[in-house]
């Protein structure tokens, strides 16, 4: 039988170390809503989402109460809208009407974000893909809950540089369209390489076409719990450090598995995957940077940061994999600057730079995430940064992503405020040496040699 010390350990994790389940994300396929008539399509989308997700929030709240574990977000991901709207939408404006429908549906069921305003263009773009991408600035400016993503590359296909070029401009236009809110729209726009079909985390969540009609995916978190656990092995060898991280990741993930199973059972929707991630928040004690500092860095960004992060990421996966029946999504340590107090401090102190962040993305779960850059940064430079990050993903056969916020009207030394879980970010300097001749080349970068595995 469970003893009092184990009960206290769990409750201490919840009360003092910010253990939570970060998100229950209900994936909904919209493929069966496809219609040639835009009004009918919008109506079918609204009906399907509001019916399937009707009890999502209340189910999450019930589970929270019964098990005593906070479930921070209840969210929805849908089939990439570029596919769903391909038949009905003749222009970017038509796609914006779908964004508004999704936003209304999200409001109705009480979720704070709905992901899947997306296009998958890793090799080339259809007209519909391009229209959707061109509609992103307007779609993000006139909605509150929509999250958008574009997959512009993969290990199997190479990098679609036409899409990279377009996305640089789209990031810039989105920033401009939401400049009254510190370019907040860009916080809801992710450019991916090797995007997973089952990611429950925003802003990059969508439900891939390999998925079923509806699925429950759960994202766990718990940087504070890992930090607290490794405080006890300060000064000890790597073996003990790694064992401690693994055991902690196991415990955290088991809670996610329990919540996922309960949500699936209560909603009558199959369980998909657990995303074993260390997802920070701006709250003190809920930071991945603080874990790296506890491992032995005076501040994140110092030499050794990449190695420490690589080790942390790997141990989280090793501990978590055994705790869940299915693992997927992004799984690993997130390093979003604005959502992590330790990262924010390191950027402010000048210890953490864009180049170091790029190096860190080679070994962590995602990419250049929630980084505020000067509003004057050119679209070509943003495309260049995207291309670099996509190349890291393509060559290393991992997911990488770029979520940059060029804060219009602000420059290095100033701070962008996004609010809530999105946090705030000091504006980081960007290398402004011109790369436009590279970005303006047409076509795509071929798939790397090691992708030819057949």
């Amino acid at each position: 039988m469970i003893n009092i010390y184990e009960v206290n350990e769990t409750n201490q994790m919840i009360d003092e170390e910010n253990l939570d389940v970060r998100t229950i994300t209900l994936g909904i396929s919209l493929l069966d809503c496809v219609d040639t008539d835009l009004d009918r399509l919008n109506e079918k989308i609204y009906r399907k989402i509001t019916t399937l997700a009707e009890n999502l929030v209340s189910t999450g709240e019930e589970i929270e109460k019964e098990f005593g574990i906070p479930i921070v977000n209840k969210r929805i991901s849908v089939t990439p809208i570029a596919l769903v709207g391909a038949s009905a939408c003749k222009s970017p404006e038509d796609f914006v009407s779908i964004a508004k429908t999704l936003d209304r549906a999200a409001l109705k069921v009480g979720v704070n974000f709905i992901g899947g305003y997306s296009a998958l263009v890793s090799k080339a773009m259809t007209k519909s893909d391009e229209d959707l991408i061109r509609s992103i600035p307007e779609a993000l400016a006139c909605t509150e809950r929509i999250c958008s993503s574009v997959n512009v590359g993969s290990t199997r296909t190479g990098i679609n540089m036409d899409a990279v070029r377009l996305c640089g401009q789209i990031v810039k236009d989105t920033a401009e369209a939401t400049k009254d809110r510190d370019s907040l729209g860009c916080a809801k726009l992710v450019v991916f390489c090797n995007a997973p079909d089952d990611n429950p985390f925003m802003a990059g969540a969508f439900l891939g076409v390999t998925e079923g009609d509806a699925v429950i995916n759960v994202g766990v978190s718990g940087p504070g719990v890992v930090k607290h656990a490794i405080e006890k092995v300060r000064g000890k060898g790597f073996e003990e450090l790694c064992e401690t991280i693994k055991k902690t990741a196991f415990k955290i993930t088991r809670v996610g598995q329990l919540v996922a199973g309960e949500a699936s059972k209560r909603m009558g929707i199959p369980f998909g995957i657990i995303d074993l991630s260390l997802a920070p928040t701006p709250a003190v004690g809920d930071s991945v940077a603080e874990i790296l500092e506890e491992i032995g860095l005076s501040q994140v960004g110092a030499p050794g940061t990449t190695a420490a992060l690589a080790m942390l990421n790997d141990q989280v996966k090793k501990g978590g994999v055994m705790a869940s029946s299915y693992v997927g999504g992004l799984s690993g340590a997130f390093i979003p600057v604005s959502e992590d107090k330790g990262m924010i401090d390191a950027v402010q102190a000048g210890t953490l730079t864009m180049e170091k962040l790029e190096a860190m993305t080679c070994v962590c779960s995602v990419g250049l995430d929630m980084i505020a850059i000067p509003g004057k940064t050119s679209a070509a430079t943003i495309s260049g940064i995207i291309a670099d990050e996509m190349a890291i993903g393509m060559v290393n056969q991992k997911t990488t992503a770029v979520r940059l916020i060029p804060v219009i009207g602000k420059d290095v030394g100033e701070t962008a405020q996004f609010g809530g879980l999105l946090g705030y970010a000091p504006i980081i300097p960007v290398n402004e040496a011109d790369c436009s001749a590279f970005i303006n080349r047409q076509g795509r970068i071929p798939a790397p040699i090691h992708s030819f595995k057949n």
Partner: protein
Amino acid sequence: MRKCIITVVGKDQVGIIAKVCNYLAEANINVLDISQTIVDGYFNMMTVVDVSAADRDFSVYAEDLEKLGEGMGLIIRCQRSEIFEKMHRL
């Protein structure tokens, strides 16, 4: 059987177990096990209960127990036992 774990934490005082158990009896909740320790003068109790025959909903007795605790300056929490079993047992 449907097990819950009730934890009580706070300043030690007369009648904590009595009051909690009285409420449980009234709600037809069976006590399976009680353990307690005092750490630095703080009372720390864990009760394993079977709620399968409870005459009210989880949200009702969980909230009643919480309020009972508030009245005595204690934190009383009721959670389904699976969260602990999943985390600490293979």
